[in-house]
């Protein structure tokens, strides 16, 4: 049995002349299980940041509400949700052995990710021009700037890494080096990035809207 088979089908143990096949954990290939474990760990990281932000906000009397418009964050949310759908379409194409279609939809997903990042950086530039930075905030406590830029910055870093992974895996899948499983695993990571944004938007943006 090849190494590839072992990673998919589990371990083979030899007792005398008998080979016993043990099932992989939760019947999930090792690579996919590794991605799930990474997602669990990264969820804890983001949860820690958001919980700390919650305690900080609750304990600070002059917490500002600087966001006047929801247009940009709504657009970014729409883009990220749509990119999850395009990723799913790409994976379904790959499962039907439609390599060209799968590559096309994965690249569309990457483009949407780039668009999200551009809008995010544009928003950052707007806030920096108004005087909000990691260590300073013209509307109240400096903790706001630190919390906002660190949480959204961490998410943007994940989006950027995801875009790079999408392009690399997409190109290698089209070249035949990677398989459908590899696209699915990359898709898991991309959906996780989208899932985190679903929590960042209400807690960081919508709760700090100026009415």
């Amino acid at each position, binding site marked *: 049995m090849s190494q590839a088979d072992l990673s998919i089908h589990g371990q083979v143990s030899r007792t005398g002349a008998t080979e016993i096949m043990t099932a992989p954990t*939760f019947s999930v290939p090792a690579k996919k299980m590794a991605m799930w474990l990474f997602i669990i760990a990264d969820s804890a990281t983001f949860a820690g940041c958001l919980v700390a932000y919650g305690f900080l906000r609750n304990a600070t009397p002059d917490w500002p509400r600087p966001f006047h418009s929801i247009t940009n964050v709504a657009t970014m949310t729409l883009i990220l949700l749509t990119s999850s759908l395009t990723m*799913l379409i790409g994976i379904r194409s790959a499962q039907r052995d439609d390599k060209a279609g799968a590559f096309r939809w994965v690249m569309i997903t990457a483009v949407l990710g780039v668009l999200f990042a551009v809008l995010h950086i544009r928003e950052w530039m707007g806030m920096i021009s108004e005087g909000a930075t990691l260590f300073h905030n013209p509307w109240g406590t400096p903790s706001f700037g630190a919390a906002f830029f660190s949480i959204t910055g961490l998410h943007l870093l994940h989006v950027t890494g995801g875009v790079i992974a999408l392009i690399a895996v997409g190109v290698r899948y089209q070249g035949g080096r990677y398989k459908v499983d590899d696209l699915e695993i990359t898709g898991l990571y991309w959906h996780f990035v989208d899932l985190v944004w679903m929590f960042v938007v209400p807690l960081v943006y*919508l*709760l700090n809207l100026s009415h």
Partner: protein
Amino acid sequence: MATADTHKTGGIGKDVAVYVCLLVLAGIQFVIAYQDISTSQMFVRMLTVAIIEGGLALLFFMHLSENRGLMWFVLIFTVAVILGMQYGWTDSFRLIDGVQWAK
């Protein structure tokens, strides 16, 4: 050996339906943001909607509904860690119930 990955249920129609549900839920969050309610009420409502959104993404986009064992492993472990971070340290209740606003 057949694994959970070989059993894909539903087509693109289901994915689009979940996508539309997520858009609607995100829209509900934006509506809640403009309601005339206290911050704590707003937080509870938004977090509830976010958990539903996250659940839909986990179950359908990430196909966790197709593997019950993995689903329970991910949910129980992640929730335990998050609750531990939220309530598992000595000062965790003081900031919420004690000194609500620092002087």
